[in-house]
């Protein structure tokens, strides 16, 4: 209960901050509605329509009242309901993010552990170098590279876009997401590998592992039984942050692959000063980020009983 209250207050606080920040940007949402040739009267009419002629405080109260009942209103520019559009775009962004997330865990965890255990071998060093490269190379570049190779030259996958009918033909939708998912997976696993490796290195030099080995456990046996549980705690917080940042951070990839995702909606909204759209995306994604953080927290407690005890002890 207490946690959900905190969650709610965080969302409200975040949206209030966002409200102010957005209005600090120069420009006017009414500008997206006019074109060259419009006279002062028409610009004023556009301002009245979007309400940017009202005093800031009045705009804010109006905004708060709507947020309280989870009403995000309609886009200034398109007139379409904000929540509906967010829903449609989540159908692209959520599968994209979650698949990339799962993919990078599958790649990064075993490779990271391997790199730590075999750090003195040639492939240990190679993993280290490649993951460093992966962090340095910008995501859009990997995306363009994959498109050129697999879409333009080999014609194995579409170069971009998402089926018009969403997920009614799942095979097509999945095919459209393969290259973008692969791009994000590669970028995300590059940094994850390094976290997993350093977490594993800590474990390898820990006393309990040495004790376990001394008691006759094999290295892999000791790692599975004792190591993963311990190493998972810091990795889970990193995973939470990575997942949260990918939700909106995928915007660059959305652009390269022409995907109608949440990130591009946000970017377009900011360009047009389409406040309802921007606020809607930000509130929903803040909510998602907080939920991810919450889940990561819960997961850490499940993995490590010590964390559970400490919190209950403190609260009582």
């Amino acid at each position: 209960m207490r946690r959900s209250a905190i969650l709610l207050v965080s969302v409200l606080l975040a949206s209030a901050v966002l409200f102010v920040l957005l209005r600090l940007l120069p420009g006017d949402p009414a500008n997206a509605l006019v074109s060259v040739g419009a006279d002062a009267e028409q610009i004023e009419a556009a301002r009245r329509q979007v309400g940017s002629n009202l005093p800031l405080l009045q705009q804010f109260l109006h905004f708060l009242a709507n947020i309280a009942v989870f009403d995000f209103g309609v886009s200034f520019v398109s007139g379409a309901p904000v929540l509906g559009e967010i829903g449609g775009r989540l159908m692209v962004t959520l599968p994209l993010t979650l698949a990339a997330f799962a993919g990078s865990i599958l790649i990064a965890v075993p490779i990271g552990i391997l790199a730590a255990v075999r750090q003195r071998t040639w492939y240990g060093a190679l993993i280290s170098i490649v993951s460093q490269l992966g962090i340095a190379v910008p995501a859009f570049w990997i995306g363009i590279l994959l498109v050129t190779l697999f879409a333009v030259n080999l014609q194995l996958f579409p170069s971009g876009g998402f089926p018009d009918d969403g997920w009614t033909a799942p095979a097509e939708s999945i095919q459209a997401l393969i290259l973008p998912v692969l791009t994000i997976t590669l970028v995300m696993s590059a940094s994850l590998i390094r976290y997993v490796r350093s977490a594993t290195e800590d474990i390898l030099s820990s006393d309990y592992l040495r004790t376990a080995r001394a008691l006759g456990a094999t290295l892999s046996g000791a790692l599975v039984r004792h190591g993963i549980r311990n190493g998972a705690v810091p990795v889970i917080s990193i995973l939470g942050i990575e997942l949260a940042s990918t939700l909106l951070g995928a915007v660059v990839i959305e652009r390269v692959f022409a995907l109608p995702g949440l990130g591009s909606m946000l970017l377009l909204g900011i360009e047009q000063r389409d406040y309802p759209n921007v606020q809607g995306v930000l509130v929903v994604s803040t909510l998602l980020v907080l939920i991810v953080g919450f889940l990561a927290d819960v997961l850490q407690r499940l993995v490590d009983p010590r964390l559970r005890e400490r919190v209950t002890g403190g609260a009582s």
Partner: protein
Amino acid sequence: MRRSHSPLTSPTRGVTVSVVRLVALMTASLTSAQAADADPNASVSIGSLYEPQNLDNTAGAGQGINEAFNGNVYEALFRLSDSGAVEPVLAKDYKVSEDGLTYTFTLQPGVKFHSGEPLTARDVKYSIERVTAPDSKSSRKNSLKGIASIETPDDATVVIKLSARSISLPYNLSYVWIVNDAAKDLKSSEDGTGPYKLGDWRRGSSLSLARFDGYWGSKPANGGVTFRYFTDATALNNALLTGAVDIITSVQSPDSLKQFQTNKSFTVAEGQSTTKLLLAYNDRVAPFDNVKVRKALARAIDKKKLLNAIWGDRGLVIGSFVPPTDPWYVDLTKVDDYNVESAKALLAEAGFKDGFTFTIDTPNYDPHPLVAQFLQTEYAKIGVKVNINIITANEWYSKVYKAHDFQATLQEHVNHRDIVFYGNPDFYWGYNNPKVVDLVKAAEASTTTDEQTARLKEANTLIAEDAASNWLYLYPQIVVSKASVTGYPVNGLNSQFFASGIRKAGK
């Protein structure tokens, strides 16, 4: 990477009077002759960078809606053909009274809206009043200010009374969509009379048009079209390369053309553009209120070199705001031709022997930042220092267009026949020459198009001699398609992309 989210950040389109174009046009017509095996039910996919913001052109839908809807979903009383002529569409015929103040239009019979309702005079009246309404955001609103009343004596007749002669009325009406007066919510649906009706609109992704079986005119040469929207020019090119789209409506850089030109599976066609890139000064403020300073700044720029740097051998250097496709075009490139010495002399005469410093408000999308740097280098040669201030399209409207709070700005203007902006002293660039104001007014009140053309030619020349702004170049306009696709328009694409004639060979 250019974005189209503001109506201002419009397509890069242009003209070149070169052999290349002629060859391209000839090949296009040759292949269309071969396209006898066209599949009349083929679905054509068009890649574009200009997604509409909503579906209503009086509610700030932006540039993209014209590309998708003009002549396809909605028709007007008239239209501008691909060759630039005003031709009747829903107006079967019209008469003008002796004093030029009363226009009587007879409507095309047998026209149905997509909802099935017949077109009547009341729909026409309703549609024009939608554009002139107090809350209309249409950029055409001002051009229809002279309409005093609209009468509908019977279902097939519309009588428009003007408060002053307006020879451009048919031209201006070609931008007024005729919508069903019973239609609701035109922002996300439609009810027009065009050869296509709206299929499905996926925001951020695509907009499909399906053939309308009840269309009064000739049946489209294809089964339907889908506009697919991209924000990234490379992604757009890749879509054509991989066959995801059949046509792309604008090419953003000469570099990306090579991959299509060297490949026989594609056709590169070049049409006539009306998009001008200019350095607009705030003519109200010093030193830009001084003609000599403006002329000096015009002569200090090697525009051929600039155009070549941005577009290779495409595009066209122009000496005024008027592109060759407007009837009042005059070649004025020699008025302030590139001449650094004379630029320096003019500056000295104006009292700026040691130059001065000014700031260019530069939109943050291509090609503006690059062009600003070029100007900076060129002006340094005559002792003028340029500061570059990068702004977004949205800020541009607040700061430059509305508040006139600027010294100079780079901007592209996309429409044809927009010389009239120089006849409006309140326009953002603040050019005020009473002679030009009178000429522009008198041109509109002309009784014949010859008279109108003569007056606007005179205005055009005066504006150029005043170096009212610095007209840098006309963009090229390039359309690339699969070789199996023909019959698409190539000219004046800022305001339309007629899809009805597009043919696609069957498999």
